[in-house]
């Protein structure tokens, strides 16, 4: 447990330990300790709120990468029902870094596709830490086409450090696979809603993230490059990641300001990993609302709006 505690969460751990200790003593001696516990718990809640209110961008990155943070398969259990997983790109292999299949939201069928990180080393090796190969993006596209064919909306959940930069990935056309998805998603004749639930790692995130609505969990991040990568390139020093995280404007709030996302989904105090149920509830409410709104649009209008949305992105002057 202690290994999963982030540096800035240490003060919380201390209070939690005190409360645990009191409860243990109370259990053993049958002494009423509620008088002592209640103020401690209040203090814990306040402290947690205070810490999470003033997270630095790099601390948010750490929360977004938290090993206990809910992943796609967790939300498939909590937000969706009736999930049937589908595998493979029908071309090369199944990429476990991306999962997908039919599920129900609000009782109706949707196609859910998301990056999947591993919970332990063994699973992470299999899932490649959520970094997909081309076959992962091609599986995603295959499932989107399936959704289009049967008139179901697509919901994608983004949580990846990025597209995998390896030999096989390059040989099999990593760039082509991402480029293809962007092209096809531009004209996919069914609603697409994307939720960034953890790390939005550059092209590997966008490859399943070109959508009619893009929402972000409060403590998730979305960036063109990791803070470490940016610092290494700009200042030849990966330890300058705080500075880079600040400069890159990668928090949900920043992205809302920049007009890149449509909504921030609030997380419970202490982040989604502190209360996964509450996080799932908030995500479900938002996804339902957006899917419901988009379903009402005529397909031509939906596509025209999708196009307008992306054409408006950027910051220019023209004198």
């Amino acid at each position, binding site marked *: 447990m202690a290994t999963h505690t982030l540096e800035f969460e240490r003060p919380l751990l201390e209070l939690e330990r005190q409360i645990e200790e009191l409860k243990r003593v109370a259990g053993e001696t049958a002494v009423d300790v509620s008088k002592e516990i209640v103020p401690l718990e209040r203090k814990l809640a306040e402290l947690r709120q205070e810490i999470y209110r003033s997270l630095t961008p790099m601390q948010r990155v750490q929360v977004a990468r938290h090993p206990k943070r809910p992943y796609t398969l967790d939300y498939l259990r909590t937000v969706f029902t009736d999930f049937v997983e589908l595998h493979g790109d029908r071309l090369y292999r199944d990429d476990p870094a991306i999962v997908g299949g039919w599920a129900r939201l609000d009782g109706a069928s949707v196609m859910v596709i998301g990056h999947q990180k591993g919970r332990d080393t063994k699973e992470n090796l299999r899932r490649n830490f959520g970094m997909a190969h081309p076959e992962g993006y091609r599986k995603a596209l295959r499932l989107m086409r399936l959704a289009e064919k049967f008139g179901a909306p697509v919901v994608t959940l983004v949580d990846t450090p990025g597209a995998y930069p390896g030999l096989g990935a390059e040989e099999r056309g990593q760039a082509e696979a991402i480029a293809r998805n962007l092209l096809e998603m531009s004209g996919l004749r069914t609603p697409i809603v994307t939720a960034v639930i953890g790390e939005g790692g550059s092209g590997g995130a966008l490859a399943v993230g*070109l959508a009619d609505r893009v929402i972000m969990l409060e403590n998730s991040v979305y960036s063109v490059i990791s803070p470490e990568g940016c610092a290494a390139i700009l200042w030849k020093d990966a330890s300058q990641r705080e500075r880079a995280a600040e400069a890159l404007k990668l928090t949900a709030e920043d992205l809302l300001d920049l007009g890149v996302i449509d909504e921030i989904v609030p997380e419970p105090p202490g982040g989604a990993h502190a209360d996964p149920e509450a996080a799932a509830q908030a995500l479900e409410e938002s996804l339902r609302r957006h899917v419901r709104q988009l379903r009402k649009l005529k397909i031509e209008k939906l596509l025209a709006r999708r196009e307008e949305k992306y054409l408006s992105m950027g910051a220019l002057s023209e004198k």
Partner: protein
Amino acid sequence: MARMAWFKKERKPRTTERVRLEIPADAWEKCDECGHIDIKERFVAALNVCPNCGYHRRISAQEYIDLLVDEGSWHELDGKLRSADPLSFENYPQRLELARQKAGPLEALRSGYARLDGMPVDLAVMDFAFMGGSMGSVVGEKIARLTRRSAEKDIPLIIVSASGGARMQEGVLSLMQMAKTSVEIARLQQEGVPFISILTNPTTGGVSASFAMQGDVILAEPGAVVGFAGPRVIKQTIGQDLPEGFQTAEFLVEHGMVDAVVPRSELRDTTARLLRHMAGRQPAEAAD
């Protein structure tokens, strides 16, 4: 005596000095690849391809424009677009200023319309000298506008890419240019207007993962490095050296990712022939 004078040769004193042909030092150039040394003019005459080993040197956007379009037919578009530094990213305005001094004011991509072998074309060319050909809002917008023009006027689109990827200094807005350009290219393809993508050294990151790999036909210059991740990043990830020739244009053809490797000297002709095929025109010889 006068007769003798006819034979007599007036002897000039022979100088022992040899007249040295003065070739200024900057007339010579060396190939970065094979070390071949030759006079600059021969490199220039060969379109900056090494006369010895065929290594394709990087050339400017202007040189590609001169190479590809009919003389005097180029009309620059959107030349006034400038980046607005949306993140107030440290040193970005200074870096932009430096890039303008180095590569000219027209950003990492120039766009315009012209004629190629008499045919109207819309052409965009990236310039690696401008911040590594990185794609920010200006590059994305120029591509989007030009592609829209092609779709609306039914004019074939040609894009010559050279880029290290998305521009970090504009953060996630740079990333979104991948989506922006894709949305327009999707529309172009729906309209059935030809798009030829030409990849030059290097084409990686956000540019290769969007419009550069979306061409109806994709050509690459010999030896050009093309991929998603740059060779350095991959080397770091896998912790070993990359195989010889990995991610070169030739490697990509072998793996089925691009249509053909085309030497610079044949780029114009090949592009013209492809356009005639895709626009349902007669070959050049048969045309009037």
